[in-house]
């Protein structure tokens, strides 16, 4: 984990400036500015309904599938504007993967779920696909449980298994950024520990933004932590500083559970 003594060496991967976000007329995010560094884990924390999921979805523009939204301000990936730059949303989503708050496996077999992304990009070779599927399932700590029933439908799995399948599905396309919305909320402690190990492992070559309600988890896996409240960024800093010496009174209250 990054500590206050070592200077940041990684470049900025995602940058957000003066970003407002509206569902229709309803303003949900208000004047956000922050940077997310490459190959670091950034945790987003804050009370329910403060806009964490919404914020995450801005990075892959996935809310455009279902809602009429308005985004103003700037959001960039590697210096290219996500909304007005030369990048279209399909290319963007190939680079920025997402694990949703609620698991959403396709009603297909376990294998087909993981192979879905690679197949989209034209991967046909059976042996390579098998390799990708196995690798992704191993990383998401699911392989041992499902290796003998890859042909079975994913909708018959438990909620926690489905969530890990969704993680595998996202990893199979090899994204540059991984957005994870409470990936462990349905997992038992063992699977949670494995996913946390995975996150630490993945950041070797991946940028990770994770929303979590579990403060210990944020403290364990993240390099940076951002605290949101009512659609505003209250404070963002190195995780170590946020959890030991936060600048804002509000952050401290939230972390110590004295929030009201």
């Amino acid at each position, binding site marked *: 984990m990054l500590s206050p003594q070592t200077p940041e060496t990684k470049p900025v991967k995602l940058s957000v400036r003066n970003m407002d976000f509206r569902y229709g007329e309803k303003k949900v995010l208000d004047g956000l500015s922050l940077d997310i560094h490459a190959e670091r884990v950034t945790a987003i924390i804050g009370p329910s309904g403060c806009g964490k999921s919404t914020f995450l979805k801005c990075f892959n523009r996935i809310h455009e599938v279902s809602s009429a939204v308005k985004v103003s301000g700037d959001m960039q990936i590697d210096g290219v504007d996500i909304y007005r730059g030369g990048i279209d949303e*399909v290319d963007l*989503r190939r680079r920025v993967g997402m694990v*949703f708050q609620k698991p*959403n496996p396709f009603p297909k077999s376990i294998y087909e779920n993981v192979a879905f992304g690679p197949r989209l990009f034209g991967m046909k070779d059976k042996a390579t696909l098998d390799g990708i599927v196995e690798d992704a399932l191993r990383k998401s700590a699911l392989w041992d449980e499902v290796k003998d029933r890859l042909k079975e439908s994913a909708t018959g799995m438990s909620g926690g298994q489905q969530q890990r399948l969704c993680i595998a*599905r*996202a990893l199979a396309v090899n994204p540059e950024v991984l957005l994870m919305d409470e990936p462990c909320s349905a997992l038992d402690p063992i699977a949670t520990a494995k996913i946390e190990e995975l996150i630490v492992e993945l950041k070797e070559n991946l940028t990770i933004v994770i929303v979590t309600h579990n403060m210990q988890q944020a403290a364990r896996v993240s390099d940076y932590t951002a605290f949101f409240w009512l659609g505003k960024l209250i404070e963002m800093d190195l995780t170590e500083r946020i959890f030991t010496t936060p600048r804002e009174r509000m952050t401290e209250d939230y972390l110590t559970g004295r929030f009201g």
Partner: protein
Amino acid sequence: MPDAPDSLLEAPPCASDPAQESLVLESLPKEPAFRHSRLQRLADRWSHLLFLACGLLVVALIGGILYFLAARGVGAFMPLAGNTDKILTLKEVFLSTDWDPNSGKFGILPFIAGSLSVTGLALLIAAPAGILTGVFIAKLAPGWMKTLMRQVMDLLVGIPSVVYGIFGLMVVLPWVSGKWLSDSPAAGFAVSAAILAVMIVPTIVSLSTDAFESLPLTLEEGSQALGSTRWQAIWHVLIPAARPRLLTATVLGLGRAIGEAMAIQMVIGNNPQWIALMRQSTDQTPILRFLFTPAATLTTELVQELPNTAAGSTWNNLLFAMGLLLYLMTMLIILATRRLGRQRNA
């Protein structure tokens, strides 16, 4: 003990037993805020019986029709009381294409093949068209168009088939004949199937729109989050996910198509010897001959000849047997498709 209570439910807690009283007091508020009146309970019991009776009535009706068709139908194959007419073998009926009742030829293969051909062709047109329209309405159309198209489809479902038949007869037949066939008659499978397809498309559209709208949005999000385009999400995720219900939509269309008589009868040409005629003629490619030779189906022959044959005659009995066959074919197709849907879905 004064008045015995009518039912246990109404019985007051027994005052002589203090232990039981306190138990009742703990578990129930003293005066229940809401209580079913006796009338309501009576109505409840009666409505239960009513539903049961309706259910039984439907079953009895279906069984009755089946029995009626079978009882008359077997008359063609075995001597019934008072029947002095010709007795047929199963082979000369089901395995022969030779239909000429006046000289004792009763092969019904042309009708079976006719029914299957026209239904198959109609589905070939209607299923893809209906499902794609369903996708369009559910996923791509703007709000106002969605409402409009849904209402139009619901209206179209209710149009009586004779109307389609008249339209086919007065408009489509002359048009096809004049435009494509240098004025030779256009009656046959092509126009029949087209009319039939138009008839069943609204049913398929309606049901497949429902199928797509009932899919959770999270599926589409999941697909697009992996970098699929909107169309890829539709093809590779939404259509497979909706498949069981799309199959049901198609089967319901099929059910309507295979049993349809009025509309087709007006445009098919009603020619039981169509197989022979098709074989003889050589003026066009086989596929065109197949599409434009006047033909007949089980249903068209039924409505055509049932009023013209004497009750109890072999011909008449055979028509009932054909009715039974139609009934069984429909059942079989529905059961087979159900099973198929379940397997695919597993």
